[in-house]
């Protein structure tokens, strides 16, 4: 069985999710801090998601050529939405009393964001991260069409040579990966937010 494809897939997911988190948080926080451009940011991210992932990858391949980079960029573009939206919504949803107290205590803008608003909003942001990470597992399957490898290769080959075992292996591996990822993040979530949920 092609175990190396499993590891390859895992690498794509981790790398893709890592960048998605970084960009997603950056965009979500920017949208929160600058209400003037928040509509534009949310709209763009929304639109990206409506493009079929195969089409996104196709366009990216024209720009970047084939390979893992293309897959990772595609995954980032495709799974930004839950993180950006949850970050924006959660930061906006921090209770006005908490925000006013933070200002009234004499915290600077950055200090408030880092030590109050972000931690208070984090449970909802984390849900966004979870959704995005789990989605990226299936998005990475399309990587095979641009030469990115991963379990997409296994599935595609299984279909091509009509090998049921291979197809089942690929499918099972993807499912297990998604379930493990979800429960792992679930545990982390429970650990992190014993208290902050009201």
């Amino acid at each position, binding site marked *: 069985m092609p175990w190396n494809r499993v590891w390859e897939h895992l690498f794509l997911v981790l790398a893709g999710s890592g960048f998605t988190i970084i960009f997603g948080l950056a965009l979500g926080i920017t949208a929160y801090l600058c209400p003037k451009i928040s509509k534009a940011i949310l709209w763009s991210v929304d639109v990206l998601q409506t493009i079929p992932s195969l089409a996104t990858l196709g366009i990216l391949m024209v720009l970047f050529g084939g390979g893992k980079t293309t897959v990772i960029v595609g995954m980032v573009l495709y799974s930004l939405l839950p993180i950006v939206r949850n970050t924006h919504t959660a930061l906006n949803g921090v209770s006005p009393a908490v925000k006013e107290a933070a200002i*009234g205590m004499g915290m600077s803008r950055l200090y408030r964001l880092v030590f109050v608003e972000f931690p208070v909003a984090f449970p909802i942001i984390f849900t966004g991260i979870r959704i995005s990470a789990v989605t990226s597992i299936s998005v990475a399957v399309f990587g095979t069409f641009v030469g990115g490898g991963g379990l997409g290769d296994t599935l595609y080959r299984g279909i091509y040579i009509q090998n049921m075992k291979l197809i089942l292996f690929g499918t099972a591996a993807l499912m297990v990966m998604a379930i493990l990822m979800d429960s792992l993040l679930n545990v982390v979530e429970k650990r992190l937010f014993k208290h902050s949920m009201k």
Partner: protein
Amino acid sequence: MIEYRNVTKSYGGKQVVKNLNLTIADGEFVVLIGPSGCGKTTTLKMLNRLIEMDSGEILINGKNVAEYNPEKLRRNIGYVIQQIGLFPNMTVEENICVVPKLLKWDKERMHKRVLELLELVGMTYEESGKKYPNEMSGGQQQRIGVLRALAAEPPIILMDEPFGALDPITRDSLQDEVKQLQKRLGITTIFVTHDMNEAIKMADRIVFMSGGEILQADTPEEMLRAPANDTVREFMGKHVAKTRMDDPALHCGDVMKKKVLTAESSKKTLECLELMSAREVDSLVVVDSARKYLGIVTIEALRERGEAGRPITELLDTSAPTVQVDEPAQQAFGKLLASKALNYVIVLDEQQRVVGIITRTSMSKALASVVWGVKK
């Protein structure tokens, strides 16, 4: 000293604070009161610059608040709001330490301060220090809210309807605690409420606002005696039932007996026994040389533990009920009825000096004067 000078603020062409002038002395407890929307919160928030005024100036000790960096200004002004706004991601200890941390106090000093503050409101670190806000009742949360505002020992504290959302019993005890703390620490306080009873209980001076203007600024007593106009009178009338026993206008000072048998703390056992038997009483109020209240000494304590030459300071009972001379008499009556051990309540003035006692007899006399209209 805080001075508002010709302060004006408008929203969309409507003036919500109109050319306001107000001077507040150091250590003064000022209560802003008035109908909803009259500009109390706006007046309060212009001081710590949560709201910027349109014209005029506010000076703190002669310096215009506009000249301060707003963040630095706010770290020196305690702030308590009705919705409490504790940080849910922080423990009680961390919440209290927010401003000290911003001021870069060292860890040890912060921890010491937390212990000290919790003790002030009868909470222990072991029990509460590591708790999160959502693990506490509303009353406890607001206690922490007050402590958080006091943490860095600010000279000024602003409170915007801090007890408005609490149940009456919790509110009552928090009012007492805050008033005591404020007096003890000498913090200049501006307190917003629309509960006249609360205003009368807490204020050194009540500032009555309506439509963005000050209609009257006076002591509670004066406000009750001579409301400046019908608006004030009506507002007071709603809150103050004039002909009742629990009339807050009736103060402890009005009903107390001024002759009190006191003993100086330098006295010894035998002198006190002598004094007690001569005057046929079973306890004495012990004061220091400045007549400051120290405690009481009872005949039981003298009999059980007294010996010739032993100073009475070693036999003091400090648990006797006391009231302040300007508190509503109702307070004293409540304490008197609740107290089993002692049949009087000791009345103290602002410097904690003994000025009188209220006995059951003084209580019934006061009752009679209310019911029969007899002059006291």
